[in-house]
């Protein structure tokens, strides 16, 4: 289930294009994607609409998890009320039936409760989010502030790095970086200039 592409360390070398203008960023990502480059991910400080199309992402399947959790909540509420009102100790109050419309509020509330928590937990699991985990995908400290980052895998033999970096700069990148992975959470970053050479 977990997308191996999410982990930057699965690739030996990764090039990052860092942008400040969302429109230029969007155009460049679409262009780079059309060129056939292997885009791993993009990092934006806000939900940038249209980027999922530019990257070729599919719609999330999280609603399935929500639906299952909702059903589970409904069944839990039904079981709880049946056990308490009609099985363990039958309570007849005001000559009303043990099973009836008075169940509806609790059925409804528990369905909502389970859906909300289930959706949130599924979201955290799917993104591998955890309390206190410091992400290695912090390429630029301002990627949660005002900068947008595109991460492109440059492992493949036929990758023309100088063409790629030129394309990023042309599209409006303010910085291009290249990361070399030595192992999990062990990497070195270098800055690249617009003809693909490393800046000392």
């Amino acid at each position, binding site marked *: 289930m977990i997308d191996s592409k999410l982990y930057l360390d699965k690739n030996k070398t990764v090039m990052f294009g860092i942008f400040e203008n969302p429109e230029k960023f969007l155009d460049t990502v679409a262009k780079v994607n059309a060129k056939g480059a292997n885009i791993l991910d993009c990092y934006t400080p806000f939900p940038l609409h249209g980027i999922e199309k530019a990257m070729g992402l599919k719609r999330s399947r999280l609603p399935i998890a929500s639906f299952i959790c909702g059903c589970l909540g409904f069944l839990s509420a039904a079981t709880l009320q049946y056990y308490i009102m009609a099985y363990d100790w039958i309570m007849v109050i005001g000559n009303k039936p043990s099973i009836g419309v008075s169940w509806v509020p609790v059925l409804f509330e528990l369905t*909502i409760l389970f859906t909300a928590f289930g959706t949130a937990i599924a979201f955290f699991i799917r993104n591998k989010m955890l309390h206190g985990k410091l992400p290695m995908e912090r390429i630029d400290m301002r990627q949660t502030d005002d900068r947008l980052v595109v991460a492109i895998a440059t492992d493949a033999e036929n990758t023309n790095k100088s063409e790629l970096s030129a394309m990023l700069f042309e599209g409006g990148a303010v910085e291009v970086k290249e990361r070399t992975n030595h192992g999990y959470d062990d990497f070195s970053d270098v800055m690249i200039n617009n003809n693909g050479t490393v800046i000392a």
Partner: protein
Amino acid sequence: MIHDSVIRPNLVTGDKTLHDVTTEICRPIENKPSMSWSIGFSISVIFLGLLGLTLFITEYTGIGTWGLNKSVQWGWDITNFVFWVGIGHAGTLISAILLLFRQKWRMSINRSAEAMTIFAVMCAAIFPFFHMGRLWVGIYWVFPLPNAFGSLWVNFHSPLLWDVFAISTYFSVSLVFWYLGLIPDIATVRDRAKTAGRKFWYNFFSMGWTGSVRTWNRYEVVSLILAGISTPLVLSVHTIVSMDFATSVVPGWHTTIFPPYFVAGAIFSGFGMVLTLLVIARKVMNYQDYITIGHLEAMCKVVMLTGTMVGLAYITEFFVAAYSGVEYEQYAFINRATGPYWWAYWSMMSCNLIAPQVFWFKWARTTPWFIFMLSVVVNVGMWFERFVIIVTSLHREYLPSGWVMYSPTRIEIGIFLGTFGLFFTCFFLFSKFLPVINMSELKAILKNRE
């Protein structure tokens, strides 16, 4: 990509860039608290202490410290409970219902309104718990837990139990919604953090957020689902609160209009409190560019609409009582308007139905000091509404031999004032440690994108 309307004014004024938004909204977190913050916080903590003291006296001596009697078994306690739950309705309404309606003006105010929801529900929960008297056995009375008293289960026919489920679901779902919305902003604070403490805590709560597009993609789906389920939830909560009254046989309570009437009242009082807080907060925190006059105006329109709906419900109740031909029902309403508690009834009428009508005038909707005054009037009026419903119905029920008057004791007044202490203490802490405005959502609607 961004579809700008040429007619509509910008939601954020001052031609802000993405970076401006970050620095300005992170400012209170990254700097020492201001003088006004410290004074406000200290006063709130004193009132919080009052809450602790009065609740201790209630538990230590017993529920007899309250002014309740054999006829009026619910007095200020449940009045305050319904008052606070009502206030808690604006947050989820703003973040869920306005999200579904694609109302972008919600983005500047949803964070603080959601925080308010959570704090208000916390204040509300105090009252039903403490009005049971013996807290330590109360846990078996409200939650379906196996216990040592034989088969003593809760009764699922009772609206009081539905209320337990509704309020606890509402509180926890609102918390989840609020926290999910906070994660990207907490990550922003983490990435700007200079001190070790801030680095640790904001890293802890940001859960490794990076702003990855894959995550954003799922995040948007999750927001939509949560908004979709919170919308019926927010409507259900006050519906169920109203059933505490509507399913009884007390004249004045036993009416089918209660659920929609309570929901409208809750939204009305919730927006009243949001306005009270934000008119001050935008001034003190210098957020006039984010929470603009346009935002205040939109909220005033909601206040006017819901106030009128509540007023219509008051009048409908009178009509239905007259039309029903039931003399007890008729007496209950005549007693409300002309009986010993007439002053409470007319305070409610003038604050809730008449006062918000000034919002028909543009000047009234766009003048902050006036909006503030009126929002306080709305809060007072909505408190009186609950007092009128609860006390005037109970103090003269079917048998005149049970007719009594009710007045609160110092302890009850202390608890009520104390809950304001709890509410404002939480709000001050929130405004110091978390971004008061949703930065990541706001950045998406900025027009200056350089």
